[in-house]
């Protein structure tokens, strides 16, 4: 546990030292704020004291934001060779993966917590369904863990950050859109399988304020499966390479 935090702390420090964190925070908050308050189906258009618009925008912004965080995690270390240094320290592969995962999740947590003032403003504007808001935030975090899992996996199979970035977008787009499209175009059991795989099914119900263990399980299992796959990729060096 301690080692995981040591790694997470270093990664988080790197985010803030290298401007990545600031740029991404500004971009994330700028985009989300713009669409929440100023454009499209924003808060004023819907006329309801709800930050539902923020959740639907964050759903998309995180989709781009997270691969940008995760792309360097393993790809850069493999490219510069520091991975060898890290893996020969007294840590397990799993601790390294979890440390990097924690760092990304913490940065996302920081990013979405900056949107809390919006929640307070809306609260000031009118009656808010507090349960739905917190549930929506939980949904964002859970979805982020799934994205981070995908991103780390993509980063672990290549030396190039760009490839890692594009690959995690590619995998992400399946969960975000394509599975939904497939579900709609098919019928029967296949349709319900693809419907289950689609993120939007699970996220929408959460952002409306429904915490279903099925949804929680869905997001955590994507993250879990991806992290396990990452570990398998890392341990492959022990067999071949």
């Amino acid at each position, binding site marked *: 546990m301690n*080692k995981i935090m*040591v*790694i997470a702390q*270093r990664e988080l*420090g*790197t985010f803030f*030292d*290298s401007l990545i964190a600031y740029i991404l925070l500004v971009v994330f908050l700028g985009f989300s704020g713009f669409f929440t308050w100023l454009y499209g189906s924003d808060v004023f258009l819907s006329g309801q004291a709800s930050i539902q618009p923020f959740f639907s925008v964050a759903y998309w912004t995180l989709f781009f934001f997270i691969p940008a965080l995760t792309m360097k995690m393993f790809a850069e270390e493999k490219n*510069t*060779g*520091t991975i*060898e*240094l890290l*893996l*020969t*320290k*007294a*840590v*397990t592969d799993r601790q390294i993966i979890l440390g990097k995962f924690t760092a990304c999740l913490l940065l996302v947590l920081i990013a979405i917590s900056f949107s809390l003032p919006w929640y307070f403003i809306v609260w000031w504007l009118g009656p808010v369904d507090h349960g739905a808001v917190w549930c929506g935030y939980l949904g964002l975090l859970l979805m982020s863990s799934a994205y981070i899992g995908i991103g780390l996996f993509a980063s672990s199979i290549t030396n190039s950050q760009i490839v890692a970035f594009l690959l995690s977008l590619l995998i992400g787009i399946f969960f975000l859109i394509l599975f939904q499209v497939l579900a709609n175009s098919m019928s029967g059991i296949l349709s319900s399988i693809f419907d289950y795989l689609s993120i939007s099914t699970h996220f929408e119900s959460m952002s409306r304020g429904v915490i279903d263990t099925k949804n929680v399980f869905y997001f955590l299992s994507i993250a879990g499966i991806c992290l396990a796959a990452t570990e398998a990729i890392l341990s492959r*060096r*022990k*067999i*071949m*390479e």
Partner: protein
Amino acid sequence: MNIKVDRLSKLYGSQFAVNNISFEVKSGEILGFLGPNGAGKTTTMKIITCFMAPSEGDVRMGEYSILTDAETLKKRIGYLPENNPLYLDMPVIEYLAFSAAIQGVAPAQVKPRIKEMVRLCGLDKEKHKNIGELSKGYRQRVGLAQAMIHDPDVLILDEPTTGLDPNQIVEIRELIRELGKEKTVIFSTHILPEVEATCNRVIIINDGKIVADGAPSELRKQASGAEVSKLKIEDGNPTDVLQKLRSIETAALVDFDGRTFTFESKKGETSRRQIFQLCVQNNWVLTELSPIERDLEEVFRNVTMG
């Protein structure tokens, strides 16, 4: 901690990078790992440091094996990989603190250890700079510092002196010699004088196999069969001199390159007295007579070629 490498093999595809090598290194010994590029040095080191698993065989350190006790062993090993990869965007001090924490150095010990490493590796002036701003020599010192921060029993250094200037090389060698007094050190290089300067034992590896093993002086003795001297003789006609030199009984091979003569005696013979006398008889001036030492260079070439 003693290191015992036992019938170690590593296959890449169908090619052996390391082919059934065994050796032992004792505590307090500095082992120079020598070989041409691509001989299997780095692979062996990667296996010893638990980065890679071997295809066959085992490495044991003390009572631990890399196959089963990697986590325990990693704490006892300090490793400087080839090309010295470092997090360039971190300040030196922070990086050392990170290395210490991740290697399980007790929190109270972290600061004193960093101080000690900064002193030992001469990083005092550079300690607050980002690693990326340092010159190659200083980066190498940071690499060494991070390898030793947790006071490991075993130090594995993969080409620790590449890219350093001659002064730095001498400093790093001294550091290694100092460390080798109480630790087990294995370091690889393809620079031969380095081995003679630092190691008490050398293993030469070629094509994944050990081709020579022993103290540098022993290996040199093995190679030196015949006495070879470099001569400069003045006031004589070179062809004449050459002819007369060849007529010395103990001469095996005499050569002239336009300026100096190379004189090789027959095995086990010495001819320096005869050469001197020959010059005196012919009134030639002998301005140079220097023995050509067979060095490790030659051992190396002998065992790694053909």
